[in-house]
């Protein structure tokens, strides 16, 4: 059994957007804010000079208990045998229940497809052929790490089991397979 997951190391994300462009080309998404499978919002906190600037790559969390799948009336949204949450576009009626149900804002309408779309972990086009997802391969900072969460030798397994990589909003109880490393940043200076 394989269970794919991703760890995102916020201490390595440069906010460069290579992942977004890689995904847009690989997966032929619309080139448009709000209609992308991944994005990298930027946050600036604090008051000069005690400022933090942080980039937080976002994508579908491929939850183990995906609320989007639960609400889908046609069975278009489903979780496949490797734990990847996908959409059968030809069965999607565009009711948007899943868009609303997703607490991570990962889904959008792709008008050209007449269906809802979202991150697929590049399952068919890359991962099933032994390649890493497009965003992972291109990630300049090496911040995105992909692998099998059931394989004790994988980097993702180690990062998650050491407690370093944690879910975003674990309280939502959806058990995301995308985890984050928040590195506490030391700040010195005047």
């Amino acid at each position, binding site marked *: 059994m394989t269970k794919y997951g991703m760890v995102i190391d916020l201490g390595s994300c440069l906010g460069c957007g290579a992942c977004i462009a890689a995904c847009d080309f*690989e997966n032929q998404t619309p080139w448009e804010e709000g209609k992308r499978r991944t994005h990298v919002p930027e946050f600036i906190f604090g008051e000069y000079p005690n400022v933090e*600037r942080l980039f937080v790559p976002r994508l579908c969390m491929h939850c183990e208990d995906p609320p989007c799948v639960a609400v889908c009336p046609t069975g278009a949204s489903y979780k496949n045998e490797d734990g990847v949450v996908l959409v059968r576009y030809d069965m999607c009626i*565009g009711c948007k229940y899943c868009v609303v149900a997703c607490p991570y804002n990962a889904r959008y309408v792709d008008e*050209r497809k007449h269906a809802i779309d979202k991150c697929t972990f590049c399952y068919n086009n890359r991962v099933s052929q032994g390649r890493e997802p497009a965003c992972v391969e291109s990630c300049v900072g090496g911040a995105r790490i992909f692998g099998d969460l059931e394989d004790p030798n994988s980097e993702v397994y180690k990062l998650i089991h050491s407690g370093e990589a944690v879910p975003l909003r674990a309280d939502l109880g959806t058990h995301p397979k995308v985890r984050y490393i928040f590195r506490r940043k030391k700040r010195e200076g005047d």
Partner: protein
Amino acid sequence: MIKMTRREFVKLAAVTGALTLMLGESEHTFKTLTAAQSKTQVKYIPNLCTMCANRCGITAKVVNGKVVKLDGIPHHPANNGKICARGQSGIARLYNPDRIKAPMIRRDKSKRGTWEGFEEVNWNTALDEAAKKIKRYMDEGHPEKIAVISGWWGCAVYKPYVAAFMQAIGTPNSAGATINSCMFPGAFGWLATLGGANHAHIISDLEDAKYIIALRRNLAGVGGVPHSWRFAEAKRRGAKVVALDPRMSETAALADVWIPIKPGTDLAFLLAMGHVLVNEKLYDEAFLKKYTTVPLLLNSETGVPVKVWDDKATGLKKYLVYDLLQKKAVSHDEALNPALLGEYTVKLEDGTTVKAKPAFQVLVDDLQQYTPEWASKICDVSSDLIVKTANEFGRTKPAVIDPGWHDPRYENSLQTHRMMAILNAMIGNIDRYGGVSFNVPGREVNLPPPPQNRYDVVWGKKHGMLPLPLPNYVPLYYAMTKGDPYPIEMAIVIAGNPIRTWSGDKEWKEAFKKLNDVLVIDVLPQDTTMYADILLPDSVYLEKDFPISHAEMSLYGAFETAIAAINPVFNTKPEIMIFAELSKRLGVYDKFINSLAKMLKVDAGKLRRYFDSEGIRGIRRAQAEAYGISLDEIEKKGYVMFETKEELMDTMPYKKPLHTPSGKVEVYSLMLAKITSMVGEDPMWSPLPKWLPPKVMSEYEKNKAPNVFYFIYGKSPLNSYTHTTDNEMLDSLLRPDYIGVWINTKRAKQLGIKDGDKVKVTNLKTGEGGVTTAFVTEAIRKDTVFLNTQWGIESKKLKIAYKRGGVALNKLWPFQYARLIPGMLTNELLVKIEKV
């Protein structure tokens, strides 16, 4: 939403969305499409990204003749399999409908600067007319009236091709941004110290460093993938990062310590670090004695070297040092234990004696005045932090100050970079793991002296400017407008955009209007192309072959090449073919081939034969044979390695001399000493670094007002050059902080400016500038604004970029330049911010 049957869907996929729907579908639809997919032809072709100057190795995925995806070449010595957003967006450049799609001619010179009067012609007509124009100067015996202006291609791996064409037509005159508004005069600081220029020859081994200081450069944000991925890797391996930047750049955001230093004062910070290093003895004494010029004896009274002479055998300089064992002054290579400190009485050949000190003693004495408290006031950084940084830098092994890239910014840019190089040398990290190292071109630096008849050399003699290996564009303006030192009447512009990127927007527009003939070769209808009489459309890298070159942004020895992924989308040609075809029409094809053969170190006969039959691929074949590499392998992989990092490291200056006058690390610079002896003392080119305040510091104090700011600028990860502003994908990724001007929240509030407001940014002195949006943030100093580049595009044919508007850097940059080594002082200006 429309409900579709599977049949309808497959039909749609086959007809319309061929690519869209076939690549990257869910498992389900994927299976339904296997029939359709079996007809598709997929190819993977290696190429080199030229969305910026880093040339990352890429693989183009071509489906049925269309490039659909670009990926980094795994383990490529430069980019290690990764490419940035710009690199990904090469596809949007390739299929950009704004491209110049066919050759064009305009016969009415008065229409220069507009898009009026162009007429589309075929290649034969365009090349014939271009050749006719060039020929006139050649026939008159004045080919030097032609200047060849290029973008970074002129200074990077394209150089042999441009140079061969210049030699063929007989002009010594080229021009580019390198000396004035790119890496110099900062690079001169590295050249003087380590015999190579930063980024072109010298790069830091970031991934092995444990302590990294980054200044004057946004290493993580816009370093380019070859630098950014190694920066991130270093961080993961636990390096501590300190970033000096008035604004919280991406590098500062990821750093452990952000030091929001006052603009242009980094030199004070570095001098104070030097103060701490010498006083706490945190320097590598053995390294300084053996591999640097600091034992060199300076006359205590005059401060000049006691004796420097040529070593005929090696061509290197020799100098006197005081040997503590032999207790006398000897040639530096005969000393067993040269003194670094103290003062000695030296007996000269003529029997007289002088008092002399090792350069290191003089440096130590000089540094005493540059205390952390002194620097603290200048830099607006606490002295404790300076002391701490210096201590950590001196005690963490390996530590490095990254050499940076672009620095024409201040009068003190040269000495700032000198001091960066010197601090690295003080801890002995040269060509060591985790230190400052050399790429392969940097190990073989060969900068031939400039041609004596080049316009800038002749002008420089008259007006007191140094002859530099690469041309300096300041005199080009005078040559084009006033015939000083002699007239330049024709410009051939190759993938450069001087109208938009060279300092002095007005000056260059005036100069280009004055010219008799303007020939421009470019991919996009940029601002400079509006000044063309003949416009020749260049192919995009994905449409053309490129011969073999060194992987420059790498610490490995590797050759790389690029293969055309598809045929040209429009009626364009690669510039190498343009040079060849022009040379043929001018009757100088032999010269072109022979010069090229010489520069590429290949056999001229073979080169000609292969090139004639196979085009650019023929050049590659001739190179592969001459360099002893497998053509098959390099064409398959895109690169071949010939030396590992292990083999290259720890070589210079240990086993091989550096390319400095003495072959040593010139902490005391013999080159700058020579300049001083010729033109007199000045802190700008003092052979040991001295503090030189940025001119803008006193101007700021004089002009203090709520709407007046220090000015800094930089690129975003989405934008490298003017050509990346007109890219549909990159444009769609822009964030507010990538477009406008950064201004501190409190200052903005005082001026009634809210985030996203339109603001006017003008140069306080010249009144030039433009309108952009305000990015109001806490992540910048209160006295400084940061402008994103390269905006302010004026060519309406660049539809995407034109719509974005913004402020052009070279409207803020006046035509002002530093003494002797003419950096354009691009940060030596104040700006006024007003709400529109």
